[in-house]
């Protein structure tokens, strides 16, 4: 399998442990990632909060860069990026006049045809049977709370992925790897997203509820597929513990960490040793 790769800023910044583990997994599973040449930021929350045109133009340029190289599919492992790319793609597909004006703004002809996949969808495309066959170290001791957060499943008419209230796609992957999952209540609640810097209290409160609920349902770790969720639940966990006077000590894994562990990689090869919360 050969597909375009849009890492986004987080995976080339402080969430480079996410890129490390997904590259390790995909190499083993014969997926070749071709990074989009000279990609730019999708604009994230700042763009859609402050300027609607920019919120379409920035992702549109990246779609055009991939299209013009002939890629039909692109992996965007950050749900913020993939949602912004899909939102722009949908707006462009529905409106010829917008396509023309955005093409002029971004100085590239854009059709909006490249399909955008999140990491869960890529593992689904590889196939659960293939994953199962590649398992070298079943996740026997893992009892995971799969956490989807906001943008993997919302807005549903944009991302068109899984059930937006009761998603199960990550659980299916975990179970194929020999792990157990728990039923819990906060799978699609928000962790505070991009408020980490501007309003830390929002993040502490929302993330504390998520960690508390996961533990109450018997989880011994959380599995995420989003760099922002990881920052808020892992990097901010010491602050949450200090603020609420509790000890969570809840390891937070990227989906590619747990796939990598099952494929037989050592934690250090996946960047798990670079997380803030150590192995429980």
């Amino acid at each position, binding site marked *: 399998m050969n597909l375009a790769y849009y890492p986004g800023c987080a995976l080339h910044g402080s969430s480079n442990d996410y890129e490390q583990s997904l590259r390790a997994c995909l190499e083993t599973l014969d997926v070749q990632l071709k990074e989009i040449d000279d990609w730019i*930021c999708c604009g994230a*929350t700042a763009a859609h*909060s402050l300027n609607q045109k920019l919120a379409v*133009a920035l992702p549109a340029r990246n779609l055009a860069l991939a299209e013009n190289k002939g890629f039909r599919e692109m992996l965007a492992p950050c749900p913020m990026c993939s949602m912004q790319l899909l939102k722009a793609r949908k707006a462009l597909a529905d409106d010829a006049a917008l396509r023309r004006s955005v093409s002029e703004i971004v*100085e590239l002809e854009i059709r909006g045809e490249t399909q955008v996949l999140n990491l869960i969808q890529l593992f689904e495309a590889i196939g659960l049977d293939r994953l199962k066959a590649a398992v070298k170290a079943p996740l026997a001791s893992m009892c995971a709370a799969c956490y989807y957060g906001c943008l993997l499943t919302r*807005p549903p008419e944009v991302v068109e992925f899984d059930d937006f209230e009761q998603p199960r796609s990550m659980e299916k992957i975990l179970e194929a790897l020999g792990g157990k999952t728990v039923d819990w209540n906060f799978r699609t609640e*928000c962790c505070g*997203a991009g408020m980490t810097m501007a309003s830390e209290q929002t993040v502490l409160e929302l993330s504390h509820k998520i960690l508390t609920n996961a533990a109450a349902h018997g989880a011994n770790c959380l599995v995420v597929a989003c760099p922002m969720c990881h920052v808020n639940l892992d990097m901010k966990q010491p602050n949450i513990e200090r603020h609420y006077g509790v000890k969570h000590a809840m390891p937070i894994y990227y989906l590619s960490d747990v796939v990598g562990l099952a494929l037989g990689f050592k934690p250090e090869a996946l960047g798990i040793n670079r997380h803030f919360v150590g192995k429980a």
Partner: protein
Amino acid sequence: MAAGMDLGPSRLIRLLQLGQTEKALRAQGMWQCVSCQTCSTRCPKSVDCAGVMDALRQLSVERGTDTPEQQRTVLFQKAFLRNIRRNGRLNELELIADFKISTFVHGRSLSFLLKDATLAPELMKRKKFHLVGEKARDRAVLARIFARCMDDSIL
């Protein structure tokens, strides 16, 4: 998330229906909103409440009606976009420096300026922090895209 807002999505929408735009623009709700899309997804009338939040934020910034309580979020979003316009890709170190300086200029809070300073060595130890960030090659096109989308004075 709506529980923590002074005016949540349904109240803001009601104010707008009643034509009380100014009152809606003075609320904190849209700046407390984390854009999680829950309200839009669950609205029984399919109102895109999160889209309305975006529109309120954009109007508020364009009209300059953002109140001091809203400042931190607004300053963060502006610093973020300035960073993208300059580099094409987010440079986290530059963003933090720009955001901290602009909040200090506005609020003179030394404790907020120094908050999280201890995080930098922790991130460096984990090789998650880069002193020299990545940049897109064609940064001139970024400046042109921004100029075509928004008024320079907003950032």
